[in-house]
């Protein structure tokens, strides 16, 4: 909402500077987003009076003028054809910063000698002052413009741009804002004139109004004025409309817009002679009813859209736009003014469906109160009588006069204290509310009955009033305290703990955390379907912002591969990325399952290029090492099972189980998949931890203390030659089964010329230890022999040396 200060000063006495006013309005919830100042370079400009106009001695086109500025008279050379003695004009003395119309730039005016005659300033055109485009001659001011007054004061303007919240239709009116300013400046407002003479016949006998849809039209008021002369509105009104952001059209339409800006009440003027049978019917639109608006656009309507109609045709789309068929024209003689209260939601729905929003609908949408229409109607009628002449009919049409009564709300001191945390004397509360226009009656020292003024649509409960009080006294005056109630008991949240723990683990292991959009496009969906096989039909958006954000992902590998692809050319050395994100698994008729998944990739060399470190590519075991470290730290015993996974290379992929629950998987990404995602670095290891599954095995786990062994242990190395097809894990498990074995570590894997074809050598360091005694080498030899015998029997393994 544009708030021209010169206009609002008529309604309220502003005692503070525009910038302070802007601050205070902002603090009160009406944020001022911009302050526009007209006449910023006008420090040295004044209203002057042209005393004489004489020919220039050396130039035919130029004139020599003497200008009176009240305290001095100056001689100036002027080239404008329209300059005349007696005119009041805008005079710029040297030092003024004005637009140079030739260069198009602002320049500081200096004294000059023009064709041999001294010129001490300039009589300005609209263009030079940047208040209009006219440069054909000088700007002539009204004849009552006070001589010597600074031009800034006379013609300058400050406009505040106010962002009005959605619940404040009154914020879209000058009077509404005037009430706010009155509260800020602790004063009362001056109401516009609503008095006029009614010399015509009875309105109620000249027009009949039938409201067929009372649920959408809460109140309809109308007045009639005959013998109006339609023409341009006065300049002052045009200027105000322009400052307020509207385009002047003719006096009748301008008045309706003027009153809309003034009161916030949208009005419409019909050419009464174009209304059939002098009958107005407010009804729902018929299915597929056609309607041409004032904008010349034909629209197709449907119920429950609301139209203003006569017995034959719709003549207006209620609360949104008038009809072309009843538009006021220069030949219009009698007009009917409409001021109504249309249902907010219905108006909004209609506007949304027709993609049509107007200044009028913007106000109705916010829920104007039904008390407002007759007041706006009277003001517009008064202005038409004053500015467009004509005869006003007696009385107005009002379909629901009862709706004007103002509701009242009880405000208690107790509730005020309960909500704000401060004790306020009831008298102070009462006067704070009064500055905003809320009348109230007091009972005792603890209760106020507050009447809600007709322009406030946002006040319906006690808390609303408490906000009003808080706004007026200022939020900064409310005390600052810490919550004094006991801290609620919170059960420890293992899920979040693990999730955040995993983030830290991956960061420490060298992974960079990424966060990707969970939305994917058709392109990625098709790729992932092709490689990942049958996946659930993802949720689809009905209004995606872009085609690449159309579906909610059901897997995370695509996201992280895309991130890898976009970074691999930018980053030298290893790339280790991880993300904890959600996949969204649709469920019939319900919200999708949102499952947290940790996905990670490892690609490139093991370390950044370095003189000390080999530059080998990372492989499966780099990823597996991370998983092992994490599970060990979490005190979980995980098992790796050979598996096949879409997108991962068979034979280089494992599923990770804890307590037979599948909690993670790891593998090398198939090169076709990499190619599809434009990943050039190879190999890429992908791993994924399913947080939901991981959590499912957690609740029963507490760390159990185990005493450190009291007797020393003893190590033996076992080098075994065994068929390459025998898994390490099987041998390992068998060794571990031996009662005295407490730890087995694989330290060597070898296949090559030193061992037979099809065999490999595995080196284990085995730690033997007993809880009851120090083991002798005999004990250990026996245990070792037992192990070797079993290994030989089970797997045909032989000791290498």
């Amino acid at each position: 909402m544009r708030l021209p200060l010169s206009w609002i000063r008529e309604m309220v006495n502003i005692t503070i500077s525009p910038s302070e006013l802007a601050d205070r309005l902002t603090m009160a919830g009406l944020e001022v987003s911009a302050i526009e100042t007209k006449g910023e370079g006008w420090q040295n400009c004044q209203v002057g009076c042209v005393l004489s106009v004489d020919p220039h001695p050396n130039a035919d086109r130029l004139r020599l003028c003497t200008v009176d500025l009240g305290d001095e008279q100056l001689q100036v050379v002027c080239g404008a054809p329209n300059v005349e003695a007696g005119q009041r004009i805008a005079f710029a003395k040297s030092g003024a910063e004005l637009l140079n119309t030739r260069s198009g730039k602002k320049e500081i005016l200096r004294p000059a000698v023009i064709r041999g005659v001294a010129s001490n300033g300039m009589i300005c055109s609209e263009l030079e002052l940047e208040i209009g485009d006219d440069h054909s001659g000088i700007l002539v001011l009204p004849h009552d413009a006070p001589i010597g007054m600074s031009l800034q004061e006379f013609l300058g303007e400050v406009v505040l741009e106010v962002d009005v919240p959605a619940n404040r239709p009154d914020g879209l009116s000058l009077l509404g804002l005037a009430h706010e300013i009155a509260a800020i400046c602790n004063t009362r407002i001056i109401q516009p004139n609503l008095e006029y003479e009614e010399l015509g016949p009875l309105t109620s006998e000249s027009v009949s109004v039938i409201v067929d849809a009372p649920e959408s039209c809460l109140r309809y008021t109308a007045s009639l004025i005959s013998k109006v002369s339609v023409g341009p509105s006065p300049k002052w009104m045009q200027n105000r409309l322009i400052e307020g952001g509207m385009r002047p059209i003719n006096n009748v339409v301008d008045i309706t817009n003027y009153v809309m800006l003034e009161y916030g009440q949208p009005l419409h003027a019909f050419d009464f002679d174009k209304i059939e049978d002098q009958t107005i019917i407010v009804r729902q639109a018929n299915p597929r009813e056609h309607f041409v608006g004032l904008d010349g656009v034909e629209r197709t309507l449907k119920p429950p859209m609301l139209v203003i109609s006569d017995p034959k045709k719709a003549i207006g789309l209620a609360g949104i736009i008038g009809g072309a068929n009843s538009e006021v024209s220069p030949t219009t003689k009698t007009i009917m003014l409409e001021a109504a209260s249309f249902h907010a939601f219905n108006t909004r729905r209609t506007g949304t469906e027709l993609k049509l929003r107007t200044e009028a609908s913007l106000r109705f949408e916010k829920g104007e109160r039904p008390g407002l229409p007759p007041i706006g109607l009277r003001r517009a009628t008064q202005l038409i009588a004053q500015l467009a002449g004509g005869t006003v009919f007696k009385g107005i049409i009002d379909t629901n006069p009862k709706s004007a009564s103002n509701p009242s709300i009880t405000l208690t001191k107790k509730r005020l204290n309960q909500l704000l945390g401060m004790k306020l004397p009831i008298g102070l509360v009462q006067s704070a509310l009064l500055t905003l226009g809320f009348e109230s009656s007091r009972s005792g020292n603890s209760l106020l009955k507050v009447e809600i003024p007709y322009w406030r649509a946002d006040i319906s409960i006690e808390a609303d009033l408490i906000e009003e009080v808080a706004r007026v006294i200022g939020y900064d005056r409310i005390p600052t305290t810490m919550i004094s109630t006991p801290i609620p008991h919170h059960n420890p949240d293992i899920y979040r703990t693990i999730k955040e723990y995993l983030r830290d683990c991956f960061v420490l292991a060298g992974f960079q955390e990424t966060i990707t959009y969970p939305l994917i496009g058709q392109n990625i969906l098709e790729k992932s379907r092709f490689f990942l096989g049958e996946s659930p039909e993802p949720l689809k958006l009905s209004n995606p912002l872009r085609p690449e954000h159309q579906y909610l992902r059901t897997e995370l590998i695509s996201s992280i591969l895309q991130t890898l692809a976009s970074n691999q050319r930018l980053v030298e050395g290893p790339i280790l990325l991880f993300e904890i994100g959600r996949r969204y698994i649709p469920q019939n008729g319900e919200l999708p399952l949102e499952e947290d998944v940790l996905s990670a990739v490892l690609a490139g060399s093991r370390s950044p290029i370095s003189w000390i470190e080999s530059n080998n590519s990372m492989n499966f075991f780099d990823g597996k090492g991370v998983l092992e470290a994490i599970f060990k730290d979490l005190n979980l015993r995980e098992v790796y099972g050979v598996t096949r996974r879409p997108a991962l290379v068979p034979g280089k992929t494992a599923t990770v189980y804890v307590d037979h629950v599948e909690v993670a998987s790891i593998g090398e990404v198939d090169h076709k998949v990499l190619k599809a995602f434009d990943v050039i670095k190879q190999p890429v290891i992908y791993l994924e931890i399913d947080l939901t599954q991981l959590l499912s095995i957690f609740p029963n786990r507490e760390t159990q203390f185990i005493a450190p062994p009291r007797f020393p242990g003893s190590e033996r190395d076992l080098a075994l030659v065994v068929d390459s097809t025998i898994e390490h894990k099987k041998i390992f498990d068998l060794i571990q089964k031996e009662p005295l074995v407490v730890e087995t570590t694989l330290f060597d894997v070898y296949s090559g010329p030193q061992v037979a074809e099809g065999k490999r050598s595995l080196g284990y360091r085995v730690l033997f230890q007993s809880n009851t005694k120090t083991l002798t080498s005999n004990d250990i030899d026996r245990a070792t022999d037992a192990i070797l015998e079993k290994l030989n029997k089970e797997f045909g393994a032989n000791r290498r040396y």
Partner: protein
Amino acid sequence: MEFTPENLIEQLNGLKETATAELSSTATTTDLEAWRVTYLGRGEGLLPKAIKILPLIPHEDRKATGRFANKVKTLLESKYSQQFVVIQNENSIKNNLQDSIDISLPGRPIRKGRLHPTTQIIREVCSAFESMGFQTVEGPEVEWELFNFGLLNIPKDHPARDMWNTIWIDRMTDNLDNRGGMLLRTHTSPMQARTMLKVQPPIRVVVPGRCYRYEATDATHEWHFFQIEGLVVDEGITFSDLKGTLYEFARQIFGEKRKVRFRCDYFPFVEPGVEMAIDCFGCDGRGCRICKQTGWIEIMGAGMVHPKVLEMVGYDPNRYTGFAFGLGAERIAMLKYGIDDIRFFYDNDLRFLKQF
């Protein structure tokens, strides 16, 4: 060199001087050994030789001379040991220097990743509130219209809906029950209702999470962002508690010198509504580019929970009061780190992410 019984003390003294001088010029173990043989060597050494003629000295002088000879011997032996250590040390330093390394070579690289800046901010913000007794919880991103709007006192067709441009889920079979349409939550506020429907007061929670808006992207707007929601409900919670809690939060995150400003603002699910700003740290409130010349930076919306919101979840609004707040994680990160374009956050350019 031969010794005579006469003036043996003077001769021993001379020997001591010569030996000491020679010892200090020995530089290697070989030199030192030669010295030892010369002076202290059993039999042929000069000092033993001198001691051998002690019996030839007249009785009355013998004792004193013998004592002096012993003193010289002890002295030379001790000097010898000292010199031995000195030479050993020097040798070991020389040896070590032969294996010296180029300490200017780079060290063995250690890989270390980083948390995404959004994660870092969420952790910081949540732990600030956890220190005041809040618990961090999370909620669904795909929501019902009922939770995203209805239960927050934002009815259908209310112009306040314009504050949250919504991305909707396309549902083939749209059973229009009271849950309304399915959507991507536009704020974390639905968790207010979800939390209150699940538990009874007292409530103190913070909810970090992704939100989505149907909005064009520019340097300060993302259609996908993280919000952190907060909710406190109990008997006796006041507006002044809201101010105190959020003030303490601002001090923890932005430093204790920051001033805060609370102004009125409108959100349908709170009454009174609040917008909190901190004084600009770019200019200390004088006005600069960061604060758009206002001296203040708005960081979150808040307010006292609307009685209708409490009613809709079955709480008695006369008994319980509470406050709620919401802030954008990226905005806090941008302010803290001076990031001038929100689009960096989810572009996942490692050159950006590695900086935090």
